């Protein structure tokens, strides 16, 4: 596990004091850094440098740093979560970059995700979509035994594929229409695949899609960009299932 040392990296980072301020790029240098350093550790190092110079560090969202909480975001050289497939920004390492390279770092760009500060955006719109129906309406207690309703293992596996969504917003940030279809589809599909969630499938699809539209997310035009940038590789087949569920719901009206 010995990694090469990168002598110099140039970072062009979006800085914006708050939601109202006009932002812009600032340029920073990082020197003599190990390729084994994670991308966010590089930002930690930059921030230590900035504090040393009595300047304000770069604000960015992050928490678990193991690719599961969905808190970290970042557009890196024009790609959500950077150049690697199937990773979040926190799992990206500098060995993927060349010595001397310039790296451009921006926040998610979407009207539905306004910038709060620097690289931090507000993803409350996602919360509202989930609140509109992203659940099975069961109350604690009074449920049947876990094995009372068998679920074919392939259905459970497919539901799990969809359920792997971490709610980071890369799909929206990547989509030219700022569509949240993949995010919505992941939840609708997961629950529609399981007998426990099937009962409310129609209502759920309608409610979540209506909320998504209301919040100003764009339409899906099937470019598939969301799937290719999704750190969890959620398939756009789930969007097809969402469309089916939505259509069924509309026909039932």
């Amino acid at each position, binding site marked *: *596990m010995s*990694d090469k040392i990168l002598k110099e990296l140039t970072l062009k980072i979006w800085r914006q004091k708050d939601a109202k301020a006009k932002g812009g790029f600032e340029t920073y240098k990082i020197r003599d850094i*190990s390729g*084994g*350093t994670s991308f966010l*550790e590089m930002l*930690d*190092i930059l921030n*230590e440098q*900035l*504090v*040393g110079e*009595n*300047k*304000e560090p770069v*604000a960015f969202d992050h*928490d*678990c*740093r*193991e690719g*599961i*909480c*969905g*808190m970290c975001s970042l557009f890196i050289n024009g790609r959500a979560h950077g150049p690697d497939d*199937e*990773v979040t920004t926190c*799992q990206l*390492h500098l060995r993927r970059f060349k010595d001397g390279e310039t790296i451009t770092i921006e926040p998610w760009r979407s009207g539905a995700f306004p910038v709060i*500060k620097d690289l*931090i955006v*507000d993803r*409350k719109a*996602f*919360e509202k979509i*989930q609140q*509109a129906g*992203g*659940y*099975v*309406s*069961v*109350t*604690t*207690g009074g*449920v*049947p*035994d*876990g*094995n009372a309703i068998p679920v*074919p*293992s392939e259905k*459970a*596996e497919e*539901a799990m594929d969809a*359920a*792997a969504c971490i*709610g980071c917003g890369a799909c929206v940030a990547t989509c030219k229409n700022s569509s949240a279809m993949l995010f919505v589809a992941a939840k609708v599909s997961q*629950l529609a695949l*399981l007998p426990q*969630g099937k009962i409310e499938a129609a209502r759920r699809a309608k409610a979540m899609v209506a909320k998504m539209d209301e919040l100003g997310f764009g339409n899906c035009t099937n470019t598939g960009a969301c799937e290719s940038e999704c750190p969890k590789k959620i398939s756009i087949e789930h969007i097809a299932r969402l469309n089916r569920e939505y259509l069924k719901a509309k026909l039932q009206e």
Partner: protein
Amino acid sequence: MNKLNAKIPEGPLAEKWANHKAHIGVVSPANKRKLDIIVVGTGLAGGSAAASLAELGYNVLSFCYQDSPRRAHSIAAQGGINAAKNYQNDNDSIYRLFYETIKGGDYRAREANVYRLAEVSGAIIDQCVAQGVPFARDYGGLLDNRSFGGALVSRTFYARGQTGQQLLLGCYGALNRQVKNGNVKVYSRHEVLDIVIIDGKARGVIARDLVTGKIERFGAHAVVLATGGYGNVFFLSTNAMGCNVSAAWQAYKRGAFFGNPCFVQIHPTCIPVHGDQQSKLTLMSESLRNDGRVWVPKKKEDAEKLQAGTITPNDIPDEERDFYLERRYPAFGNLVPRDVASRAAKERCDAGFGVNNTGKAVFLDFKYAIRRLGEETIRKRYGNLFQMYEKITDVNPYREPMMIYPAIHYSMGGLWVDYNLMTTVPGLYAIGECNFSDHGANRLGASALMQGLADGYFILPYTIGDYLAKEIQTPKIDTASPEFDKAEQQVNDRLRALHDIKGTKSPDHFHKLLGHVMWDHVGMARDAESLEQALRLIRELKQEFYRDLRVTGDFSAMNNELEKAGRVADFFELAELMTRDALERAESCGGHFRLESVTEEGEAKRDDERYRHVSAWEYKGDNVAPELHREPLAYENIQIAQRSYK
């Protein structure tokens, strides 16, 4: 008189919880609507509690520092959740889960609490299935199980390597349903920084809005802390970057006793430290020990060659490999509990047999399992973990063994609570990892998820009713009171003082130094001398912190540095209490290993005569020694014995 009353119900062990529920107070639906409850934290404990309390009809205010409740660190739990379902017909039972949990905790947990935990464990699985959690299933469509450390049966339910995520998203859904119904209001990007006490009862919190920097007050009839553990006192741990002790610590300073602060878990299977710029450690699930075999070279010269990088692990033939867990613990082998596995790894590395360029790692090898089961099966079981490992280390674990080393993972210690999960402050509850209650001196794998959800879904919603039944006459809490004024002012002053030091070093700088002191002196092996030294070093470093801290940015705006400074300030105080507790407990038990107290074979040696109790510390003032209270532990249903996994 002993200030600690655990309020354990009378009667036989198996009937205590049923009897207790039958006799405690219940609030009528009409009155529930008039009562407000604050829940701090939205992990498995806090999220499930907030959802369940709202379903009952209470008004719930839910707080988290992340931008969404779904991001709480329960999300990162990988391997699984235990439940005594006996679906595998392998002779599991409530009693066996209870017994293994008490034994795994090295006989330092309360019998009644642990029995109740085992009793409600099955209902958790039912609940999660009903919510649409996609647990792994066998080809007949029934729920599948895997094995975990410290257990002789297979009782761990799982959803690939993302069990915590799936359980948390299940309870996040339940929470969202209540938000939609208007019974929960979520305050995300809010950090709770103090508990407000009025006439001896918890009546609200002071929180900082992390977006605006505004310090705000919130009132309620009861406050529930579900703020997780304090492993980040070590700086490097498997916790999320934002995990902190601040709310729990302020609760301690407001009169809630802190139980067993020195009991922290060091997890044996983490990716080794790679350099001094590292920000956190990544766990590799314990479930890997189902199929991975742990080894180091038998010969020291092989270890040295591996450290120098002149040979690779695959160059070492099987007969030159020391499968030290299988050698030392034939009955449990690679599935010994975490504390045992961690110490065994440290023992081999300290003796010079460690690998990696640092000499601080051991191998976890899947070659044998791949040979036995095929690569596809292994990929299906652990694919995402293997991918994560490769991303971080650039090594393919299907071809070369993983390298692992122990790291700080979980805190068994926490706020002392009685059987109702109430702290020593009336109306203030602590649930999940935040309390001390169920895991004794060492937690078994897949039991944290079980405890968090047991507390939140099935225990607190009952026990809090007993307290609130006596509060139905209390009107809405008015936050325009002198107590709220004072608490808000204190939070303001505390943060302002940190902001105004205007020194030269960042909060992270001090946090790292504190972490080094804790790891070196209050880590995997402790003795009186190193602990005394730690106390001195912590105090010196704390003085330096208050002299030379630099917090850049505005006070009344989003300011990550100010957030960190506040957390580190509390970690300094906690570090001292942990060290003091470790010093006072001159025995080895579970994760607390005192070098002065070992068996002839090098295992942890308890001292039941002197330490068969919970240590609960009472805050007495900033520069005054805290007072130690002892809750004796009675074992009426288990024959207490020297723990053996041989």
